[in-house]
């Protein structure tokens, strides 16, 4: 019953004021291992694309955002009960791993797949 909730909540709609681009979404971002100060031991890859999530979470959390039940409740509490309880935050939802080739301190060479290194999608929670 999202529509009826919206009509009952007093005050201007935060969603309506925000342009589409400021809503919670994935932003591509690339950094080099040189910038992170790790290029003295990482052989490959040279560039890393961690990406990031940024934007406002909508008042009504739609299915596509994959928000958990708790986020839905917290949003309702923020809107209807107590505004000191913050709205859910825009954070990564799915990650993918990255494979890294590096030189260890003793001269061994290591190939390793590190989990959860690249944000692939975002959620409000």
């Amino acid at each position, binding site marked *: 019953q999202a529509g009826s909730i919206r009509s009952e909540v007093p005050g201007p709609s935060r969603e309506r004021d925000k342009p589409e681009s400021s809503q919670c979404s994935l932003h591509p971002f690339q950094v080099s291992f040189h910038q992170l100060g790790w290029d003295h031991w990482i052989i490959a890859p040279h560039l890393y694309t961690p990406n990031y999530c940024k934007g406002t979470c909508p008042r009504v959390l739609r299915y596509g955002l994959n928000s958990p039940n708790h986020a839905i409740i917290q949003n309702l509490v923020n809107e209807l009960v107590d505004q000191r309880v913050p709205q859910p935050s825009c954070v990564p939802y799915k990650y993918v791993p*990255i494979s890294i080739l590096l030189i260890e301190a003793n*001269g061994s060479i290591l190939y390793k797949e590190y989990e959860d290194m690249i944000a692939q999608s975002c959620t409000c929670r």
Partner: protein
Amino acid sequence: KVGQPSIALLAEAPTLPLIWELLEDVPGKQQSKPRVLGHPLRYMLELYQRSADMHGHPRENRTIGATMVRLVRPLANVAKPLRGPWYIQTLDFALRPNRALYQLVRATVVYRHQLHLNRYHLSCHVEPWVQKNPTNHFSPSGRASSKPSLLSKAWTEMDITQHIQQRLWKHKGRRILRLQFMCQQQKGTEVVLRHWHGTASLDIAFLLLYFNDTHKTVHKAKLLPRGMEEFTGRGSSLLLRRAR
């Protein structure tokens, strides 16, 4: 701290497993970069290119069979005096202490089975060194096999998983895998000993250890006690409908 992009700063977050791992594995910035050249580096670069794309995304069809591969080079090569027709070197490999989160799935030794010293040719093989004991036998898990895609013609790969798991892996403390690199001169040639001793500085063999990361399964088990998955699986959709 701005302008000091270093993992040392991240040490303040010691609960992060990745950070601990990086601090443990990574050479310090002040330390000079370990020099790794030649065949070991080429081998690992090729393994990397086959397993991940240029952005570092693991390939869907990768055949590596592990989430971590460590190439270990010998600590030192000691060329022994000639024993009959055999030229022998002892190779010691230091194995790091076991970590519960990584399971050894495979171990192989990659070595040159052909050596060319000036105009002399040697045929070589590798044997794990075992103490003189009548009950000791070495039985490699598989026959030596060359893999043309990753290895050039002069190199061969031999599976020694069983040997490492049975004899070394469960030991605590410092563990050394000792191998003997044995070469035989080809008919009609006689290698000058000084050439043989010169091979001590060459890359003639390296060890490959394949591991699987068990962290994910451990983590999941900790997060979801028995029976919880079922609860969350069925319950969450119900709760979602009620909340909406």
